[in-house]
């Protein structure tokens, strides 16, 4: 019994954005194209368009995150939506009937979109399964599962710098095991069809069966970076130093930290990316993070445009029969 994808509506349009997995290549390209147009809105004096006027976006953050919350809020506001922020600090409240009560209350207040961040994998899917038909859900990061808007903004950054995806060799370096960003990037890059995708880390940070996602595994940084066009560094959480995953920060930096010297084996025009926030001197040297090959700040500004695109595309789905072209 095969069910229809939860994130698409009957017409195959994007209703929720929960994961990159299952998006068609053309759908990802559509999102990137739309985001490209929203970048020009950032150049306006009034950095705002009236697209989502009268719509209400609720940021449901079950896990603290200033940066992601801010960019979603900014994106919603630039679309003229009303934004409501609900901070729920413990995951105890996102269970059972109390969760449904909260969702139904928000729906009763005519909210149109939930942006969900949660420490448990699958939380956004859970909420998407239980919302009213007019509500869209955007996954702003769930456990180690997915962070689709981050992956899309990374794709936009790569496309703006490199053009085509097909010839690219991309290396993702660091804590793949716990990274929702890496999982979403892997799905996006394999869907867009890069020439080679590598994940680079010691075995303790590489999940079992990761090859089944279509990546090559390297345990040596030089081998992983050789001739790469794009180098994506992942944040290493401090708590990973416990639990026998790694011996020490120093040893990690010595073997997997990105320095100018290590970067030299990549292509001369390789770009360096990082989803932030950066641990300088842990996974990346300051000289690289702030260096000429770094596109880290571009990622941040592209993030707003991508989130505007995703919000307007998911909320801009009219009933199929009423679609008609506006006359001039």
């Amino acid at each position, binding site marked *: 019994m095969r069910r229809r994808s939860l994130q698409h509506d009957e017409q195959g349009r994007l209703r929720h954005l929960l994961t990159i997995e299952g998006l068609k290549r053309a759908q990802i390209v*559509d999102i990137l*194209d*739309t985001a*490209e*147009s*929203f*970048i*020009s*809105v950032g150049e*306006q*004096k*009034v*950095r*705002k*368009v*009236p*697209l*989502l006027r*009268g719509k209400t976006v609720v940021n449901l953050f079950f896990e603290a995150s200033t940066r992601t919350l801010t960019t979603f809020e900014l994106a919603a506001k630039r679309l003229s939506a009303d934004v409501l922020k609900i901070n729920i600090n413990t995951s105890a409240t996102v269970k059972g009937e109390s969760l449904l009560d909260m969702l139904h209350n928000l729906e009763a207040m005519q909210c149109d979109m939930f942006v969900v961040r949660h420490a448990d994998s699958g939380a956004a899917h859970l909420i998407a399964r239980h919302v009213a038909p007019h509500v869209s859900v955007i996954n702003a990061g769930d456990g180690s599962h997915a962070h689709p808007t981050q992956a899309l903004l990374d794709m936009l950054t790569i496309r703006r710098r490199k053009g085509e995806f097909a010839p690219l060799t991309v290396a993702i370096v660091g804590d793949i095991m716990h990274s929702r960003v890496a999982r979403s990037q892997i799905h996006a890059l394999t869907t867009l069809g890069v020439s080679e995708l590598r994940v680079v880390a010691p075995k303790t940070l590489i999940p079992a069966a990761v090859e089944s996602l279509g990546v090559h595994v390297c345990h040596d940084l030089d081998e992983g970076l050789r001739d790469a066009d794009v180098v994506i560094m992942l944040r290493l959480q401090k708590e990973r130093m416990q639990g026998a995953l790694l011996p020490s920060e120093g040893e990690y930096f010595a073997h997997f930290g990105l320095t100018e010297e290590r970067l030299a084996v990549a292509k001369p025009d390789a770009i360096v990316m990082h989803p932030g926030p950066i641990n300088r001197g842990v996974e990346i040297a300051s000289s690289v993070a702030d260096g000429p090959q770094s596109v880290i700040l571009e990622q941040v500004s592209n993030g707003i445009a991508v989130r505007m695109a995703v919000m*307007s*595309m998911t909320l*801009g*789905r*009219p009933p199929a029969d*009423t*679609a*008609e*072209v*506006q*006359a*001039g």
Partner: protein
Amino acid sequence: MSSDDEIQRCLRQMADDLRQRLEAARMGDALMVGIHTGGVWVARQLHAQLGFEQPLGELDISFYRDDFSRIGMNPQVRPSRLPVAVDDRHIVLVDDVLHTGRTIRAAMNELFDYGRPASITLAVLAERSGRELPIQADVVGRHFDLGEHEHIKLSGPEPLQLSIVEAP
């Protein structure tokens, strides 16, 4: 309906009208802005004939449409590009067809989000009946009286061709 020759005649006439207007009002370094898609085609030709100093600007009004909640996101949206600041500048706004006036309203709203222009002059290749907003063109290529179910369609960019189609 209208052949390329006729359209070229129209465009030359429009260019003449515009030149006179701009000279009379001393709007020498005006910025010409075309509205996607047909308006940009028309604007390119006018821009070339008038020999404007400033490069041509392009507006995609998808984000400013008043019917977003009914028709949703335009999947072919393109970035708007204004090559110079709009503030205190005279703008020549160009579109292919002026019908209800809603596209022009959206375009003016978008322009104002870029800044406060000194003036806006509207030039359209074709004007027809059916206005729903108090918006009139300053320079018109050709006027059409059409029924409710008739629509003007511009195909292009090479050659530009106007045709009237029956819409249900």
